[in-house]
């Protein structure tokens, strides 16, 4: 679990901007967080909140002439944003592994799964021979729970089921025993039953290998299963962060209430209609003045025209920070909707 001083990865005031045809888009706007060894950090938000861009920027995948990256990403004290491309290539896969949302499209259809794993090994350890690499691939596939790995290693990705492909992706990520795994929506494209298996696998790896994990998701249900700490992102900024307990039992930001309210929970009676957050995320090209959640927030008041800083607003939990002007007492009252946490529908 989260243990204070020790930091593996430290992100400070990360800002990522894209120049597009229609103007400059600030996809990530001042995100900071630390990751401790063995910790599972979840970054939660809707599509367009900047969570995937944040994750991909960590290993330099968003670099391009049209991208401006500011701020700092430190891995064991080494500044990643200043590394050259070849130096980053050394980090990718060996220190930080990343797996992606859609296992259907994330593996190259023209190579066997085994070949793609061997390729990952040989990208970092030239001395590894083909046979040795293959043996390692079999071992890895076996370790992520692929049955009959000795035979399946020579299969093509399309011969694997979705869940197996995601396992293969994870196996590929583990080849060089990285210290950090970034999982970008690892379960979104999978069936519910498979989702649970993959999450279990990630959790097992986290426990058995002490693999620090950044889990990117839009689904708080996924977060509840595995995360130690949670970052909630909206329109490129962190709007709330805290431990799993803090976020789930004492959420401070109305957007978090909305996310929680739209969860189906087994421990509470199911509401008649699953509430959704009304409206859609703002266009990053035309952000509203002040709090960007304002147009969708039923609790909006005069102060919201100013954007609040990310601060600890509860005296008893300094690690729990949020960006909402409402008083903690007011929040506790307003977030109760039909006997559970949620965001009321707008008055109109």
């Amino acid at each position, binding site marked *: 679990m989260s243990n204070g001083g020790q930091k593996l990865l430290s992100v400070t005031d990360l800002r990522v901007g894209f120049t597009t045809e229609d103007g400059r888009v600030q*996809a990530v706007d001042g995100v900071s967080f630390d990751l401790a060894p063995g910790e599972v950090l979840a970054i939660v938000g809707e599509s*367009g909140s900047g969570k995937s861009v944040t994750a991909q920027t960590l290993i330099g995948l968003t670099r391009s*002439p049209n991208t401006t990256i500011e701020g700092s990403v430190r891995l064991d004290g080494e500044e990643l944003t200043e590394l050259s491309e070849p130096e980053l290539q050394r980090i990718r896969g060996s220190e930080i592994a990343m797996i992606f949302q859609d296992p259907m499209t994330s593996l190259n259809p023209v190579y066997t799964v085994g070949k793609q794993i061997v390729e990952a090994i040989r990208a970092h350890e030239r001395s590894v021979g083909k046979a040795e690499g293959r043996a390692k691939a079999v071992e890895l596939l076996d370790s992520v729970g692929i049955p009959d790995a000795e035979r399946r290693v020579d299969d093509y990705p399309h011969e694997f089921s979705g869940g197996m492909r995601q396992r293969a992706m994870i196996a590929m990520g583990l080849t060089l025993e990285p210290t950090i795994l970034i999982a970008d929506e690892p379960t979104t494209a999978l069936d519910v039953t498979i989702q649970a298996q993959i999450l279990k696998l990630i959790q097992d790896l986290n426990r058995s290998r002490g693999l620090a994990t950044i889990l990117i998701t839009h689904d708080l249900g996924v977060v509840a299963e595995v995360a130690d700490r949670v970052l909630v992102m909206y329109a490129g900024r962190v709007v709330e962060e805290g431990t799993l307990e803090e976020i789930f039992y004492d959420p401070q930001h109305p957007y978090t209430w909305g996310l929680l309210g739209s969860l189906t929970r087994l421990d509470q009676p199911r509401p008649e209609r699953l509430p959704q957050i009304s409206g859609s995320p703002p*266009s990053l090209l035309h952000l509203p003045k002040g709090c960007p959640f304002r147009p969708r927030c039923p609790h909006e008041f005069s102060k919201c025209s100013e954007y609040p800083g990310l601060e600890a607003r509860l005296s008893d939990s300094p690690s729990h920070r949020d960006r909402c002007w409402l008083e903690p007492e007011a929040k506790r009252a307003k977030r109760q909707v039909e006997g559970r946490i949620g965001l009321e529908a707008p008055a109109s």
Partner: protein
Amino acid sequence: MSVEPSNPDLTDAAEPGPAGTAASSSGTGEGRGPWSLALRRLSRNWSALFALAVFLFIVIACLAAPLWANQVAETGPNETHPLEKLHVDGEVREVVEPSGAPIGPQWLEAGGKFFLGADGHLGRDEMVRLLYGGRASLFIGVTAALITTILAVVLGLLAGYFGGKTDALISRVMDVIWAFPVVLLGISLGVVLAVGGLKIGPIHISGSSLWIPTIIIGVVYTPYMARPLRGEILALREKEFVEASVAQGAGPLRIMFSELLPNLLSTIIVFFTLNIANNMLLEATLSFLGAGVQPPNSSWGTMISEGFDSLYSHPILTIIPGTMILLTVLSVNIFGDGLRDALDPKSKVRFEARSGTVEPEGTAV
């Protein structure tokens, strides 16, 4: 010469146009229609605009051929001047020397007469022939593109809309034509029709008519446009707005013309443009081989063919009409490229790919 049977430029353009995407996504340009967005993109593409200007200049010059012929050169495209002499600054120049060698370019020295010289022992004015030949080449290029477009749209709509047996029949026929080398098909038709002309019902087109190569070229390229259109229609057919229209009791014609066609418009425009370029090249090839434009008509292709016989003594007679074809086709291709970039919503993706940017947030949620 091979006019590629598998024209990637054409197949490449077979993506849903802006009208199609307008329905599915609000896009980035809020408040602006897809067409004005395309126009804005095009207006920023200076090379495409320059190409368009070059093409229009060539078209206008060729349309003004009679003006040049009557006012400046004072001769027609088929008028021969084997014995005529030019008086330039008191000097006498023979249009055709006794040896049979034609006069070279006079530029404006003879008041515009024989601007590019004469075309051979017949002493015809090369410039006048070039302008008139351009009319034929451009006529065939544009008209054949129109024929292709009409045929392809009708066949594509029928096959894509009705599906089933209609689709199977049309598609199989298209497959067979597709398997044909374009040049060979054009040549075969050109050769047989040049002899006896074409009879369609009561209409009889003589073998030397410009319409023969025009129709041939128009037909030969039809599958290359009909196939991708059919594919696009099949995809559109599944869209909600078409189903809604069906549910409201709209008939097939109504759906085809008021629902499907507008969504195909941008693809059609791009195809049409690129088609003009390909048509002009095919016309030149056929004419060069003698299976295209027939005497007494002439086109840039036939001019090259005639000039080729005296390539070593008068290379200009081959190179000038060839350069005109190159310039025209190149300008159409560049403009067509710009048009596609402007109309094709995927060009935005390409723009990002160009710089290696990952799309901000995938398709999550």
